[in-house]
């Protein structure tokens, strides 16, 4: 049963990841990314990390992907891309990817098939995770909070309309439209 679920969602994750990379339209890529993240969340649950599975669905598939979709629609991105120099570069990238996969796979394969101990109620308990997070990893936790604050401020400043602070004035180059000739 577990093997069946693993293979189903592994195939789903890999297939949708390929769609993310291959598809021309960023919107379809993003929606396919949701499928990848959801399949990975299922695998997290299989690995005894239900909290991370839930977090993955909530934060990644919920918030981050919506942010992506929002920006894609805000920018009204055309689907075509410049193709010059794509041929050779694509093949070199493919070769490098195959080599990378060979090396990673070899390393992981050598890691062996060590028998893992079965999951217990204690090993998946959220309480133990939270205790460790808020005792031993409290400082990193606070730093991550600070990082998120800085990121929010930085994103707001970076995405602000350059120049004036007034927003009621209609500017001639609104996002997503062609500039007036």
């Amino acid at each position, binding site marked *: 049963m577990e093997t069946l679920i693993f293979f189903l969602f592994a195939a789903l994750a890999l297939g949708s990841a390929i769609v993310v990379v291959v598809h021309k339209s960023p919107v379809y890529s993003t929606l396919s990314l949701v499928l990848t993240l959801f399949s990975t969340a299922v695998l997290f649950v299989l690995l005894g*990390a239900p909290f*991370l599975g839930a977090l993955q669905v909530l934060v990644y598939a919920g918030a981050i992907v919506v942010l992506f979709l929002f920006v894609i629609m805000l920018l009204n991105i055309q689907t075509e891309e410049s*193709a010059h120099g794509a041929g050779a570069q694509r093949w070199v990238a493919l070769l490098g990817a195959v080599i990378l996969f060979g090396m990673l796979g070899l390393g*992981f394969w050598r890691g062996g098939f060590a028998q893992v101990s079965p*999951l217990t109620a204690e090993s998946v308990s959220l309480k133990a995770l939270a205790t460790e997070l808020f005792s031993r990893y409290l400082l990193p936790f606070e730093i991550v909070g600070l990082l998120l604050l800085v990121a929010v401020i930085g994103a707001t400043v*970076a995405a602000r309309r350059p120049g004036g602070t007034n927003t009621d004035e209609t500017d001639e180059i609104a996002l997503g439209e062609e500039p007036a000739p």
Partner: protein
Amino acid sequence: MTSVPISWYLLLAAALFVVGTLGALTRRNGISIFLSIEVMLNAANLTLVAYARQLDQRTGQLLVFFVIAVAAAEAAVGLALFIAVFRQRRTIDVNRLNLMRW
């Protein structure tokens, strides 16, 4: 009890990571490159959780927690930068963003 070896998870993570790398190297649309990077981060998360399972420790899971938070920050800042770039150059095709290329 567990019939799926940890190595299979690790191999799946390696495959996902390579797919993401391929996308980041070949795509020309800035948003698509970003999405590929998200796939790579996701693969790294899967590796961490798989090893946390094998070693029976929680540190790997907590690291994934931090990775997700940092990925959120990275997505916010990166997309804001893309908006700023798009406002200046009317494109986010990385082949045309060659101001700093020599």
